[in-house]
């Protein structure tokens, strides 16, 4: 199989690393060659963070570049806008409509652009946008945003649901398992009408 590329983008602290870990585990269990590239350290401190996940018969480069991603899982609007040029023109974008103002906006040196979701939809990309934060809170914790998004992604791949559930179970603390399974289900069953 030719290499497929998925990007996970968000703000440091939103739990993007857990999402990439679960995705990597699922793809490995499906028998693919997999590479997952993360950035640790300084940029994790509330900065823009991106993780690259690639899989197929044989993966060489661990990174994804402009025009290469088959799917982008965006944890925040502005980050979706920042990385949209990395999506293939016919790629899928799954978007949490949550907004987190970067410090450049807080200090007034820049503005948070309006109408990002419409702009993204007009770009030609296949966009699924919904308020993941509200769903996560409904599941029991604002911190479950990552698992809701994983559920939404899982529903848009060819990989069996059980493989996803097994990886979620492996990667979340036991005492928050029920909460996370509920969050996964919310993302998985989310339909267009609920957007």
């Amino acid at each position, binding site marked *: 199989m030719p290499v497929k590329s998925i990007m996970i983008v968000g*703000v*440091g*602290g939103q739990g993007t690393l857990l999402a990439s870990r679960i995705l*990597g*585990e699922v793809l*490995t269990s499906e028998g693919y*060659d*997999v*590479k*997952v*590239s*993360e*950035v*640790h*350290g*300084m*940029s994790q*401190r*509330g*900065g*823009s963070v991106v993780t690259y996940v690639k899989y197929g018969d044989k*993966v*060489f*480069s*661990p*990174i994804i*570049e*402009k*025009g290469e991603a088959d799917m982008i899982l965006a944890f925040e609007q*502005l980050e979706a*806008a*920042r990385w*949209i*040029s*990395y*999506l293939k*023109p016919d*790629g899928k974008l799954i978007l949490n409509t949550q907004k*987190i*103002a*970067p*410090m*450049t*906006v*807080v*200090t007034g*040196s*820049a*503005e*948070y*652009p309006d*109408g*990002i979701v419409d*702009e*993204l939809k*007009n*770009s*030609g*990309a296949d966009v699924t946008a919904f308020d993941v934060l509200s769903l996560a809170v409904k599941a029991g914790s*604002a911190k479950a945003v990552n698992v809701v998004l994983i559920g939404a992604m899982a529903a848009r791949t060819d990989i069996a649901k059980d493989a996803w559930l097994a990886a979620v179970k492996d990667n979340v603390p036991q005492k928050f398992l029920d909460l996370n399974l509920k969050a996964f289900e919310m993302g998985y069953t989310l339909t267009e009408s609920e957007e």
Partner: protein
Amino acid sequence: MKRLFLGNEAVARGLYEAGCHVVSSYPGTPSTEITEFAAEYDEIYCEWAPNEKVAMEVAVGSSIAGARSFCGMKHVGLNVAADPLFTASYTGVNAGMVIVVADDPGMHSSQNEQDSRHYAKAAKVPMLEPSDSEECLRFTKTAFELSESYDTPVIVRLTTRIAHSRSLAETADRVNDGLRAYEKNPRKYVMMPAMARDRHIAVEERTLKLADWSEGKAVSDGINTVEYNSKKIGIISSGVCYQYSREALGDKASYLKLGCVYPLPVRLIKDFAAQCEKVYVIEELDDFLETHCKKNGIDVIGKESFTLLGEYSQSMIAKVILGDEKETLKINAAVPPRPPVLCAGCPHRGLFYTLKKQKVFVSGDIGCYTLGALQPLGMMDTCICMGASVSALHGRNKADGENAKKSVAVIGDSTFIHSGVTGLINIAYNNSNSVVIILDNSITGMTGHQQNPTTGYNIKGDPVAAVSLEKLAEAVGIKRVTVVDPYDLSRTEKAVKEALEADEPSVIISRRPCALLKYVKHNPPLKVDKDKCRSCKMCMKIGCPAISLDKNTKASIDFTQCVGCKVCKQLCRFDAITD
């Protein structure tokens, strides 16, 4: 069984399988996780050392004692450890000794972009460079074998994209040979001039033998590999640059992948280059491989087509060599940058706000608090390297004594132990009227929460003796030592003012555990009473990521981020911020 390994985790697995007994490191992105993963194996003794020099000397001692040993560090850490490295090259080893140096092209989390391959050549020790996690594991084991066969420390060089990428690797059992016997041998282990002269001869002979290894056995062992496809283009590369090249060019090119980057083969490269029409050397940072080729009369294209700066990538290589560019999506929105920030509830915030009010010069250092340099706090004037805040402040105050009344140094607890304490001794000994603020957040923060000698715990989480920063400062001769809680703005301000006014050196310990530590209990998020908020933006001056202005330009606090530290509450003159 194959599974996904982070590059650093694969190195740790290699240490385990190679029967490594002792690991000593100082944390540094992107190398930190090697030692954290190694500490999960009960068979390996692991520790965080106070700095990289100590770590390498520990590894040297263990190796001479007969135990396979390891130390890991980031590129700038190798500068600190360079002193033992250059002489350990002369003494050689008893049991194998391996060093990982993790370079950071693109400076994801570093203050410079040095190319540590030069260290291998300068210290005359072999250097291997893996290109994925499978090679991280395998090359680590090979490094121990090389170390013992050729009587030398061996460096394994990683870059961020190898250290922090996960890919598949297969595991094997641990070999456990026990300790090698130590035999007293001052001609080998006591490096004073007469002995060292002999050892230098041995080092030069060793390098020639290692060069032979890289021509032959390194190829049959799968360290240096050749892949012939189309011979119109030949690529000489190593590490992640091989992966970028292979993806960019596929079977349109042939590849010589050099897993051993020092010493480099000559015949192997000449034979490869002779087969190909046009040969490119693709390497991030300096022209290390290219210089070797050109010195040996091999006609290659290198830095005339590729940059000395930053990271490479598959599309950059495709563009330079094939002229290809990909179609991309565009949207009509100006996307503001999102630089990293001090976290909500970060104890450093209150301290930096206090320094801003005092309008002081801030001699800065390496850690989370370097983010205090960014707006809106903007309270850092210099940041050079680990420990430089303290020693450079002394220099500033010696240059002009008037500076002392309006300058401070800021340095974290771990950084202070790493190399700030020597600067403080200099301040006391050579008597400059300097104010040193130790930002004690009870952990090594930026690298992801490692214990250090001040925290009272070791790498395994066991309780151990803790360095008392107060007593240490007093012991080196500082009489004015105060401790403040940076969440308490008025007391922090008082302590800073008094220290600046004093006619003697001062140490202020700004003490409050990192808000991200698991044992730190958070208060409920604060709220803004919109009726009382006058939109004065005082609360915005501290650069807290949880605070922004809502559509009505009233302050707004993000409940998902706020940890209730109440620093903003102390700034609000209208009591609009409530518990």
